């Protein structure tokens, strides 16, 4: 089917014959050595390319200033479920709109109105993940 493979060791073992101790030991050593050698080369390649991409082409965007903001007071009563002036300048307005929509939906259920005063990034000491990443990880590992 495929072109004859380049013979690594010139087919040193005959398939139909039983093995002696020397052949068994040689095969094991050859096998482990080749597997480790091939994968170590891949480690070296990836380490080099990783350094290159971290240095050059993969510069992270300037870190966003995430100064702590006042905690979200989403339960503060207000006349309308509309956002007050977004407290965190630079926050994604779409995200805030989604949060507002969720709060408005919650208010519609119990007949109350809420106002979103601020959005604050919470950094959890333990995992170092934001809440969305945390939710994603929990979702992926839930069966266990």
């Amino acid at each position, binding site marked *: 089917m495929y072109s004859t493979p380049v013979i690594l060791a010139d087919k040193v073992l005959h398939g139909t014959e*039983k093995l002696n101790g020397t052949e068994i*030991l040689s095969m094991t050593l050859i096998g482990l050595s080749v597997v480790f050698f091939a994968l170590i080369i891949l480690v070296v390649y990836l380490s080099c390319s990783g350094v290159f991409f971290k240095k050059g082409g993969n510069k992270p965007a300037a870190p966003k200033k995430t100064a702590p903001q006042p905690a979200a007071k989403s339960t503060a009563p207000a006349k309308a479920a509309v956002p007050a002036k977004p407290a965190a300048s630079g926050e994604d307005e779409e995200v805030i709109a989604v949060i507002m929509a969720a709060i408005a939906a919650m208010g519609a259920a119990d007949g109350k109105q809420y106002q979103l005063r601020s959005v604050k990034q919470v950094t959890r000491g333990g995992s170092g993940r934001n809440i969305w990443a945390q939710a994603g990880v929990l979702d992926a590992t839930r069966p266990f």
Partner: protein
Amino acid sequence: MSGVLDFFTNTLGGLWSDSGMHALFAEGGWKNLIMILVSFVFMYLAIAKGFEPLLLLPISFGMLLTNLPMAGLYHPDLWVLVDGHVNYGEVLKEGGLLDILYLGVKLQIYPPLIFLGIGCMTDFSPLIANPKSFLLGAAAQGGIFFTFVVAGLLGFTAAEAGSIAIIGGADGPTAIYVSTRLLTGGGAITTGNIALAAYTYMALVPIIQPPIMKALTSKKERSVKMEQLRTVSKTERIIFPIAVTIIVSLLVPSAAPLVGMLMFGNLLKESGVAARLIDTAQNALMNIITIFLGISVGATTKADQIINIKFGGVMLLGVIAFSLGTACGLIFGKIMYKVTGGKVNPLIGSAGVSAVPMAARISQKVGAETDPTNFLLMHAMGPNVAGVIGSAVAAGVLLSVIG
């Protein structure tokens, strides 16, 4: 009137002697009966217990079909080598449906195509972000080579020992690929035996691995929280499959069909420009090949090939291979734990046996049992996908050395 009666009884007798029922109760028919019952057990495991149902169900049904006497779906005698070659003309002329489907196994078409689909579904980012994972993927292949030692000492031939050992790679298509190439037919061990053992133990990974993981690691080691992986750029993810194909194929050319297809599938995925091809490769094509592969491999489990002492040996050595692979990965993980000053959780080492993604999920599960806030899943995915590449390389070595 008596002539009609004679004709009737003779015809009826002829029909009975040609029927499968007669063969089932004739000499040796009990073996077929046992195999049919065994196929029911595997169907039960696949349907009721969810053990690798996508492959175990077609395999078990192939086992049922091939052991129905006189059905003529598969003929093992057609696959015995004559002067070192299969007589494919005879297969096309005399073969049944499953003989024809088995051509794709014998010609090593199905396993690489399965790898194409797997490549489309695999995210190598955890491996690219943490290249040292490759070492754990390599260490876990110790299960293959140490099982080769045990099989050799037990008196199996080189081809049989290689085919049994590859079960330790915990990768079904690779096991089928290697055993098809090495086993020449006519022997006591077939590709079907190897596939059955491989898929049975892959389904039992959640039972086999945790006791070994707990026995070989301390609570302190299992509690290690690893640093979050860096983000991998799209360019890196695109270059990776091309580089791996070139490096592995140049080093171990026999691994090129498996690794090449795996990486081709991954390139399709990462390129982001071949949505239609990805859709076909990981859905329709994968499903078709899975059906063909499963049912035709199941067909090779003829009663004579299964009900013998050697198949018992295959099953025993299969579980030894899985256990040794897990242990080797863990031991290397412990070495990395020491070398890095406790930054690597040794539990991710057991994911170095392929069995994607189940082995990685077991690492996550055992880690979370020690500390519920510890999330090892993505860290374990690195060795897990490295194990796929590692077992393909190990397969290439076996094929290159054993003639």
